[in-house]
């Protein structure tokens, strides 16, 4: 079986915005995005995707990580047939999204960034009509809709108007809607933005369960923790380009400086910092008042040497904190800016 998703040299260039044509969900001009050479002065095209190559395997939980304006939503837009690529190709389940969007739509479920239920309908009607759009007969869709509502803990809200549902309930309704036609591939665009921590955790559980059922899931997020906990592989993108692609652990191992050790001393740390220069296996040691920040690739091996050096400098450690290499540090190193 071929890849579930494949993009080759995918490019999307939006014409310079004229007036206020783009809504709030449209692509934003990322700071520092390269203005296109050919654009006449005074106009700036928006390069949302700049030669993106991706391949997602069937059954994979794949994350697209990047700051706002990185091209995540545009990527999802192309793959869900809602954005026409400027050049390059994209295929979903082996089907070209431009040549045959209808066949692609048949195979995908999409959970939007912001819940967009049909507000003229009740919760369960949202599911039933969506099923009908996919040609699913009522006899099949009715039990399926109720099962999905039950599964997502809104089984008793089926007849409620959508406006009477909370934000978290609406988001879960959107996932139920994306699943009612049993798609092979599920797309989620920043599904937990705007949810409270409890609702976010509940959603993570749902997504894990869906993945365990064998579904391919592609999710965008700009939350490090979310990407780390859920995704099997992560693509870090910025300015529409792929910066890194690996498992979360693999990416973290690439984070510069290794594990961060933050040591609080009983006095000024500069003498201890000087003494640390002689300890092997440390990449950086920076004193700040009584605080000492040390990076070590193998913190366990380095620690005895560090403690000895501190004692030699006439200081005693009061507190030691270890922070393992994180996606956050990697991201900063790759893009030069913070994620959130």
């Amino acid at each position, binding site marked *: 079986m071929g890849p579930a998703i494949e993009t080759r040299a995918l490019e999307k260039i*939006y014409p310079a915005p004229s007036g206020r044509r783009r809504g709030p969900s449209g692509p934003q001009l990322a700071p520092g995005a390269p203005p296109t050479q050919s654009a006449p002065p005074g106009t700036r095209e928006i390069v949302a995707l700049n030669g993106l190559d991706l391949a997602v395997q069937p059954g994979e939980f794949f994350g697209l990580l990047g700051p706002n304006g990185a091209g995540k939503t545009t990527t999802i837009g192309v793959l869900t047939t809602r*954005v026409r690529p400027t050049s390059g190709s994209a295929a979903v389940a082996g089907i070209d999204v431009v040549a045959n969007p209808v066949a692609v739509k048949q195979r995908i479920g999409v959970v939007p960034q912001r819940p967009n239920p049909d507000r003229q309908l009740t919760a369960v009607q949202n599911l039933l009509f969506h099923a009908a759009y996919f040609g699913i007969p009522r006899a099949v869709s009715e039990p399926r809709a109720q099962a999905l509502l039950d599964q997502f803990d809104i089984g008793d809200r089926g007849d409620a108007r959508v406006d009477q549902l909370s934000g978290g309930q609406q988001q879960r309704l959107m996932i139920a809607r994306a699943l009612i036609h049993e798609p092979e591939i599920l797309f989620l665009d920043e599904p937990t933005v705007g949810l409270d921590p409890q609702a976010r955790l509940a959603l993570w559980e749902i997504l894990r369960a869906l993945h365990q059922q064998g579904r391919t899931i592609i999710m965008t997020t700009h939350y490090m923790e979310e990407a780390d906990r859920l995704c099997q592989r992560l693509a870090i993108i910025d300015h529409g380009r792929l910066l890194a692609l690996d498992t979360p652990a693999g990416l973290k191992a690439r984070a510069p400086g290794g594990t961060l050790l933050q040591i609080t001393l009983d006095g000024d740390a500069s003498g201890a910092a000087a003494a640390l220069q002689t300890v092997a296996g440390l990449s950086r040691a920076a004193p700040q008042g009584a605080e000492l920040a040390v990076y070590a690739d193998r913190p366990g091996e380095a620690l005895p040497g560090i403690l000895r050096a501190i004692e030699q400098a006439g200081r005693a450690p009061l507190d030691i904190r270890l922070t393992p290499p994180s996606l956050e540090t990697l991201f900063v190193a790759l893009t030069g800016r913070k994620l959130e």
Partner: protein
Amino acid sequence: MVFRALVRRDIHVVSRELPMFLLRTTLQPIMFTFVFGYLLPRMGFVQPGYTGALLPGILGVSLAFASVQAVALPMVADFGWTLEIEDRLLAPVPTWVIAAEKVIAGTAQGVIAALFVLPVARLIMGPIPGLDFAHLGVVAGMTLLGAFTFSAFGLVLGTAIRGEQIGLMFGLIVAPMIFFGCAYYPWKALAGTPVVQVLVLVNPLVYVSEGMRSALTPSLPHMNPLVVAGALVLLSTIFMAVGLRTFDRRAVS
């Protein structure tokens, strides 16, 4: 199959809102009917025979603007901020099918509005000289063609206009269209002001009003129904061609 589900959804939603929809789209023509078809004739400012010229025009206005609003208003909101139409754009059909369904639903709503206004207007005005239901085929044809043309025009407006411009749409497009749409006077009566008579020909409502006159009051002055039908077919073709394109551009960026 998908198309049928789209229609079912619109029937479900529209039937729930029908009273509000009729109130919103027909109150203005009905009030106009009351003032010009009831009060003014009794004041003696207007000849009693005026109601014969007025009724088809009132029906034309109701038909046209119920159709335009039925398509354009939800669409401006859908593409502007609610994004509710997204669930239909994910349906496994080409996007033009979704736009076409909206136009057909709008046509039906226009016809419903006209069917509602006809007895109300007749009741307000009393017996109407020249009113003649002998040519039901022509009545049905003109009604459908007029509603379809304005429904397609609604598709153009609904996809071309931004949310913040809705007020502008009514002030700058709809209001002039009504006043210069030969709804309240027959086109032939503009013979005394030939410049106006020619200029109003760009207004699609002229053909709807005149089409209704040719169908409902054939003994009174009216435009040739074949000219009317030709103009409406041409206009609706243009509106559909433009509207489907702009819809596609909003649906797939």
